[in-house]
């Protein structure tokens, strides 16, 4: 299961994650606070330029990530078209696409580990409320480790269902999948305790 980071590396990969995240916050805020459509057009153009600057393959990959917005393009098109407010529709769309484009740019140029490191750092203030950063790191690692295990198990259950039914088994497999997860959790917790457990936070 691969992360959404783009490879090979581009110059933007070299920028540190916190800087990119802060820039992203600034840009997104600007997009939604500056009321004129110019912000969207200018920033949208900037996003396009940045993608293009990283190479045409990168640009194409970036455009693909915008596919999920199609339903909303249609909805907005119908809505504003029916009201005769094309300008309004285009501006909202431009703002939306620009925001998503910049956000995806950060995702494509930042390795998963860096993002996780940022996340853990953001949780720092919660230490005072009892959150144990060791538990958080461990939880992240375990989640990543088990996602492919459960995905493979889901595939196997799908096949087991297909072996006895010509119908779709997509709902039937949720139960055994969940049960397997609960059983695994008990076993893994035991194994963890046997290896010393989670280090207390202090």
């Amino acid at each position, binding site marked *: 299961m691969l992360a959404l980071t783009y490879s090979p590396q581009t110059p933007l990969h070299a920028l540190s994650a916190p800087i990119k995240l802060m820039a992203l916050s600034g840009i997104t805020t600007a997009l939604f606070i500056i009321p004129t459509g110019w912000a969207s057009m200018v920033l949208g153009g900037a996003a396009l330029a940045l993608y293009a600057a990283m190479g045409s393959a990168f640009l194409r990959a970036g455009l693909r990530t915008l596919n999920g917005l199609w339903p909303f393009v249609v909805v907005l098109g119908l809505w504003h078209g029916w009201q005769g407010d094309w300008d309004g529709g285009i501006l909202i769309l431009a703002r939306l696409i620009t925001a998503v484009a910049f956000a995806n740019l950060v995702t494509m140029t930042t390795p998963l580990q860096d993002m996780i490191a940022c996340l853990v750092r953001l949780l720092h203030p919660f230490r005072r409320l009892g959150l144990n950063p060791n538990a958080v790191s461990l939880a992240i690692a375990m989640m990543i480790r088990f996602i492919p295990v459960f995905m493979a*198990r889901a595939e*196997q*259950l799908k*096949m*087991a*269902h*297909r*072996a*006895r*039914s*010509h*119908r779709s*088994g997509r709902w*039937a*497999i949720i*139960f*055994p999948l969940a*049960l*397997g997860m609960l059983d695994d959790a008990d076993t893994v917790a035991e194994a963890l305790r046997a290896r010393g457990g989670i280090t207390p936070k202090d």
Partner: protein
Amino acid sequence: MKNPHISINQVSLSLGDRSILCDIDAQLNDRRIGIVGRNGSGKSTLARCLCGLIKPTSGMVQIDDIDIYKDRKRAIQKIGILFQNPDHQIIYPTVGEEIDFGLRQIGHTAPQARDKTRQMLAHFDTLDWIDRQTASLSQGQKQLLCLMSILAMEPDVIVLDEPFSGLDIPTRRILGDVFQSLPQTLIHITHDPAVIETYDRILWLDAGQIHRVGTPEQVLPEFMDAMMTASGLT
């Protein structure tokens, strides 16, 4: 009773650019068929192709002229499969429901299915299991449940995909006796030649291709030699 005719026609399967099965071609009429090979030789993938669970990249599997991948309704009454790990196979919380399921899928009504479930459980002397939680069964008991679930659908062929994994010796023995007593055609996938010594036909799969086909006497000694001298972990 004539044995079902299993026709594996030039079956190849690739995942991406990895070739897993290459041109598997065999016409099988025997009642007891064994498939041996190292881990990674493609045995499990072939098992799944035989049952119509995955689509070959090219070629097809037919049993008595039924296209097993396409004609699912008839396929599930032709061939069933017992997986390695019963936890990957059992879908329902209680034993009764698990066996009922297959019966409903082949068209029985709920009362009919329940009747046949009772018959199946009674045949194996486990009628008291009917309302038991599947989760409370031991591994060996779960395998037996999986077998009963398949037998209830009255297939002509049953694929056993390394069904003894993780079972203790007495359980293997008992389950093995059950398998031998079955009237169906069995296709037993294993990397342990001892369990298929008395079979009628052995296919030896190596790196996705049929390396040898023949009787146990013809194939197994050479297979054992190869296993004893093979180096490298799979």
